[in-house]
């Protein structure tokens, strides 16, 4: 395909970009799998998406955050725990007292779905895959990978998908499955000072940047650039005398990504951020990583996930949530205000998500255990703020109104950023697989 386009370029820069985009997509096809061909089915739509520069930022509450201590409190009930609820900017809707900042902002930015049924009661990554199995012959892609593949400009030097973690515990690393490895996330994890367990928190270093995005000391930027030019020259010489070589293009693509990371290293820091902005997000690792996430979103990275763990409080649930929920409140409100002030929120969808919720029942250790039902939030792009969708009973045990499954939630996310949730990709076994199950309907009540 590449050789058929050779010699047809008119020389204009605009057409050069389009040509490179085409080749980039094609390289992605050969490097990442056959499914990239589907991208060419609706090039007009793909281009429109990329022009509109939609982005998604997910705050993933790893371990199972309690809906009772966040978005669906039940004060005064046997299941309610100690915290009271507070009124919000949405008449009739109350949130946990632990989230006073978001309580003021719900009506301005956010829709809440209180009735998610995950059918999951364990620390597994299945919810990130919409309930799809993560083992088996067909490797389904995660939500983040699907969004990255739909929203990314393949020619961009920026990573398509970045995932931050700020704690040492269990994490769920997403994979793109049959979409191809190019849509896997760049995972930024804490560094461990000690190489082997046991670890304490003092043994970890929170990272804002990927490792290896800086040149070694013995190499200047100019020298590195010249080496890149020589490599490119030799590569083109080779390609001109050989049939199209997918390995060469894979290396080109990989090198471009590495070089892109180096060129954009400044994004993975707080460099240049005013102190009042840093303070607004808070000095915790979660806050710092959320601020870096905003920088990446602003630069055009289409999907960023910031993990905050570990919410799995089988003991001392109220003590831990009293610490972590105000932090979430601070970070989430800072992020939404910041994106809004920069004019980014109308193009950025911000999600809170978790792998499960927590039980209404309070156990002997003052904890809450695993529970398949939970609350999620959607803010910004494509969302009607102030919608409170779904309802649980007075004790938070059963969903009594508007149950939402994971596929419906995913469909809502896709629709919010203008993606057809029934669009099909080709799985590795050759069959078409839609982004969400056939006949899934998004929750239109929360869509703008």
């Amino acid at each position: 395909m590449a050789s058929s386009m050779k010699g047809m370029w008119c020389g204009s820069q605009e057409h050069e970009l389009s040509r490179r985009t085409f080749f980039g997509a094609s390289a992605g096809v050969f490097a990442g799998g056959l499914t990239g061909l589907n991208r060419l089915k609706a090039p007009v739509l793909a281009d429109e998406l990329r022009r509109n520069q939609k982005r998604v930022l997910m705050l993933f509450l790893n371990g199972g955050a309690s809906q009772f201590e966040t978005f669906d409190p039940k004060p005064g009930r046997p299941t309610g725990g100690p915290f009271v609820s507070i009124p919000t900017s949405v008449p009739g809707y109350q949130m946990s007292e632990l989230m006073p900042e978001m309580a003021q902002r719900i009506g301005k930015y956010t829709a809440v779905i209180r009735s998610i049924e995950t059918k999951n009661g364990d620390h597994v990554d299945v919810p990130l895959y919409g309930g799809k199995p993560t083992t088996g012959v067909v490797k389904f892609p995660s939500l983040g990978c699907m969004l990255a593949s739909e929203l990314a400009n393949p020619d961009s030097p920026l990573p398509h998908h970045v995932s931050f973690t700020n704690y040492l515990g269990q994490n769920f690393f997403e994979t793109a499955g049959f979409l191809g490895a190019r849509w896997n996330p760049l995972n930024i994890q804490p560094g461990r000072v000690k190489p082997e367990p046991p670890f304490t928190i003092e043994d970890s270093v929170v990272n804002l940047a990927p490792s290896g995005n800086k040149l070694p000391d013995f190499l200047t930027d100019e020298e590195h650039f010249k080496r890149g030019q020589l490599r490119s020259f030799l590569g083109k010489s080779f390609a001109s005398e050989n049939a199209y070589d997918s390995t060469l293009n894979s290396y080109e693509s990989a090198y471009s990504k590495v070089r892109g990371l180096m060129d954009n290293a400044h994004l993975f820091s707080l460099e240049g951020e005013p102190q009042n902005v840093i303070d607004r997000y808070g000095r915790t690792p979660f806050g710092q990583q959320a601020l870096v996430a905003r920088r990446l979103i602003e630069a055009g990275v289409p999907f960023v996930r910031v993990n905050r763990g570990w919410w799995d409080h089988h003991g001392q649930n109220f003590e831990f949530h009293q610490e972590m929920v105000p932090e979430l409140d601070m970070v989430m409100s800072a992020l939404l205000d910041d994106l809004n002030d920069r004019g980014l929120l109308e193009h950025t969808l911000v999600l809170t998500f978790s792998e499960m919720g927590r039980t209404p029942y309070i156990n002997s250790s003052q904890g809450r255990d695993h529970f398949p039902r939970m609350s999620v939030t959607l803010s910004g792009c494509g969302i009607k703020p102030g919608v409170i969708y779904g309802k649980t009973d007075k004790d938070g045990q059963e969903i009594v109104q508007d149950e939402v499954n994971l596929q419906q939630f995913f469909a809502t996310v896709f629709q919010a950023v203008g993606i057809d949730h029934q669009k099909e990709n080709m799985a590795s076994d050759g069959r078409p697989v839609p982004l969400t199950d056939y006949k899934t309907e998004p929750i239109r009540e929360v869509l703008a």
Partner: protein
Amino acid sequence: MTSEPSLQFKSVREYSCDGDLLSVVRIPETNQLFAGGSHGQIMHIDLAPETPVVSSWPAHVSYVSSLVLTNDQLISAGSDHRLIWWDRESHRPLRIVDDHPKWVRALALSPDQRIVASVCDDMVCRLWETSSGKLIRELHGHSLQTSRFLPSKLYQCTFSPDGSHLATADQSGQILIWEVATGQQVTKLMAPHFFTHDTNGHGYGGIRGLAFSRDGLLIAACGNQAGDTSQIGGSKALIRVYDWATGESTHEWNVGGNFFYERVQFHPNGVWLIGVGGAGAEQKIAVFDLVSKSAVHLEASPMLNFDFAMSEKADRLFTVGRKDATANSRIKRGYLIQWELTTTAPPAG
């Protein structure tokens, strides 16, 4: 042959109710108590009759976290941010103070009953006139955040036996001693053993219970040591005693198992220290000897204990908490248990 007295515990009465029982205070010279529950209710419980006589009333929205008793009034504090004064006989509310912005964790009553102190998770201790509910002063000094910039908690307060000083303690293991008359902070004790961060960055622990010795020279603090029961991993219950004037730690007990000590009090004999707790794999009532620095008795408790009261001679102990309604049941209920303590003097010679 032991030269120390031995102690025996016997559970003699029990009362149960819906929800957890979180706080208790005893009417002096009686077997009558007021208990506060997780459902916001306060109960007056008379354990003297064959069948306990109970009256209860709705008091707070959720947790009744602390109770103190004057000659004619009961004062309660709740996680709904309120202090409420009640007529002790009629149980009618006399006064509501709504000035705390967060969970009011604990109350303490001065020995002359003129002042009630409250501690709140905004990290402020407030002193109130018991007779009028008027705010006397606020005591600021505890850090708002832990060392990892997360919100801290202010767990406890207690007056010295002569009423001249007040101690407050927080999640980070800070104990501040205040001069009551002036509000001046006179001492800061750092007890970092009570607090840690686990590998997920959670702040864990804190000083849950606090008590001055009978002579006012020592202060005991209780909680948990550097573990993580939230991860079902295990940690150690911890009690430490300090000479608060010098800051020196004089005693430490981290025996008893994997749980939190929630409350601690000095025995009237001045030599023993009693701690109760739970939450974790084990639940205990423990008695320690300050002279020998050993455990006198470790009683396995049938329930997770949140608070306790004792008789004037400490021959009766009243613990409140929660446990399974029946064996292997997931239904938990609040319990008040009356214990008889029998001290056996060592054999002569």
